[in-house]
């Protein structure tokens, strides 16, 4: 990882005695300084051992566990006064959960918000990576419901710990083998298991396969937070992230031939299907990343503002 980034995390780990700007009625970033330091230490460990799930003392947050509490704790622990925050839920800045989380971060820090990755530094996300290329300026914070990639093949915590410790992933391979035998293809779509830095297998949250290749040798730092499961793990910049797949079964991202976004016409972004309704008739496709879709439309019709 790049030195300035590590330095940035380290700097933030230093004690801050009076972090609250005068106009906030809570501590800067809501969390007390000791909680921030503990979370930052967990993050440092996670960055130092890419893909390793670091246990941390997950706090009670003003959102329920399972609603992004892990991502939120990371965001609040690393946010600084110079950051600009973007929060998305399944690619959408206007999802109810995204809006609430963003409001919480902004109101407890006073920092500006944005929907555009270009203007943002801290991007908290549920289940997507923005379509725009991200770089050294960005820290991507992913909300993780189930951090354990081996949960499907083993439930015993001690055995799971042993498997990770010994890099014994044969049973994960067996599950992929069985999937392929039973279904002809590897059907796993979201949260595809990946080997990080040639050592630990991670669950790539439930991001779609479409986003997985963008974690590989990325320019940005990705931090994964699971509040309910009390785990933090990381993919530092310039780190190998290889989807587990057989040599003769190439990893493929989701593409529906002929599908186009109904709003912007794109066939080069991750599209989601909107089911048919009685009012509108047959189903159609739209961009998952709503802000990217909006800007794509603007590029095509600069005069038109935002469509309803």
């Amino acid at each position, binding site marked *: 990882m790049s030195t300035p980034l590590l330095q940035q995390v380290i700097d933030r780990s230093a004690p801050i005695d009076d972090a609250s700007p005068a106009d906030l009625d809570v501590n800067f970033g809501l969390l007390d300084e000791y909680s921030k330091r503990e979370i930052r230490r967990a993050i440092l460990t996670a960055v130092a051992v890419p893909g390793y799930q670091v246990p941390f003392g997950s706090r009670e947050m003003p959102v329920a566990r399972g609603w992004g509490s892990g991502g939120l704790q990371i965001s609040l622990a690393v946010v600084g006064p110079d950051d600009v925050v973007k929060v998305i839920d399944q690619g959408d800045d206007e999802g109810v959960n995204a809006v609430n989380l963003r409001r919480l971060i902004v109101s407890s820090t006073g920092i500006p918000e944005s929907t555009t990755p270009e203007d943002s530094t801290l991007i908290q996300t549920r289940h997507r990576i923005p379509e725009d290329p991200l770089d050294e300026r960005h820290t991507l914070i992913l909300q993780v419901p189930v951090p354990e990639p081996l949960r499907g093949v083993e439930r015993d915590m001690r055995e799971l710990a042993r498997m990770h*410790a*010994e890099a*014994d*992933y*044969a*049973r994960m*391979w*067996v599950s992929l*083998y*069985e999937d*392929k*035998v*039973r279904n002809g293809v590897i059907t796993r779509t979201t949260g595809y298991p990946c080997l990080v830095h040639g050592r630990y297998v991670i669950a790539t949250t439930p991001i779609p396969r479409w986003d997985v290749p963008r974690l590989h040798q990325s320019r940005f730092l990705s931090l994964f937070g699971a509040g309910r499961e009390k785990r933090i793990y990381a993919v530092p910049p310039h780190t190998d992230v290889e989807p587990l797949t*057989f*040599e*003769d*079964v190439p990893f493929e991202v989701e593409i529906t031939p002929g599908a186009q976004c109904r709003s912007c016409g794109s066939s080069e972004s991750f599209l989601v299907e909107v089911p048919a309704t009685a009012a509108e008739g047959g189903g159609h496709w739209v961009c998952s990343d709503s802000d990217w879709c909006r800007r794509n439309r603007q590029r095509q019709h600069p005069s038109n503002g935002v469509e309803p």
Partner: protein
Amino acid sequence: MNNDWALKVASLGKIHGITDLRALEDTGPDIGTAKSALTGSIVAAWDVGFEVAPGEALGVIGESGSGKSTVMRCIAGDQSSTAGEVYLRSVDNGRTNVLDLDPSSRRRLRVADLAVVYQDPAEGLRLNVTAGGNIAEALTAAGWRHFGRIRDRAAELLERTEVPLSRMDDLVGTFSGGMRQRVQLAKALANEPPVVLLDEPTTGLDASVAAGVLDLIRNLLEETGVAAVVVSHDFAVIEMLTTRCVVMNHGRIVEAGLTDRLLEDPHHPYSQRLVGAARA
């Protein structure tokens, strides 16, 4: 002439309970018990030693509770041992006592250096995984990453152990006992380990099924040149599979010799009783 061993076991011992060596004095075949009255510990096995050459099968025979399975589990690493040395020619050319390895390195031996076939197939197989998937587990553990080649190898192994290929993609849990044992053999041989331990491989199977599995094991041992340790209470199994064997009683080896000699000219009182009972 035959210094060329694949597996060498020396002074292997396992005491359950407090490790107080005074327990050795009031246990064993002469005392007639494995449980020490003095310390309360059970001497499951003590001072067990033998060598097995490539292509050779050594029998370990004794009644239940004689310590034969303990010996096997201590060699396999399923159980910790109290004392002793175990060497594998494939590990550091036989210079490292594998009992001294850390648990992780020890477990890794099970990938390609040492395979175990258990009496209960559920111990060696995952019943909720297909026959091919069980073999794939052994192969992927050894670094196989090519789906087509894994399939081919699994099919080859199943064919060799006489499992119909039409059942390759069925869950092992749907298989009969004899068929499960064949899959277990296929999995054990997947990475061509130089040493295989077989623990009562046909016990619990119907007689005719057991005979078929026994035939298969005999063929595999002859054809692969693997060094095998066969643990059994059944002289018919030992006679069919091994050329040499050791007799265990109350945790100790009471006699060792060529298998036909042990059957026709047993020396130790316990061996004579055991053979007499088998012949009756």
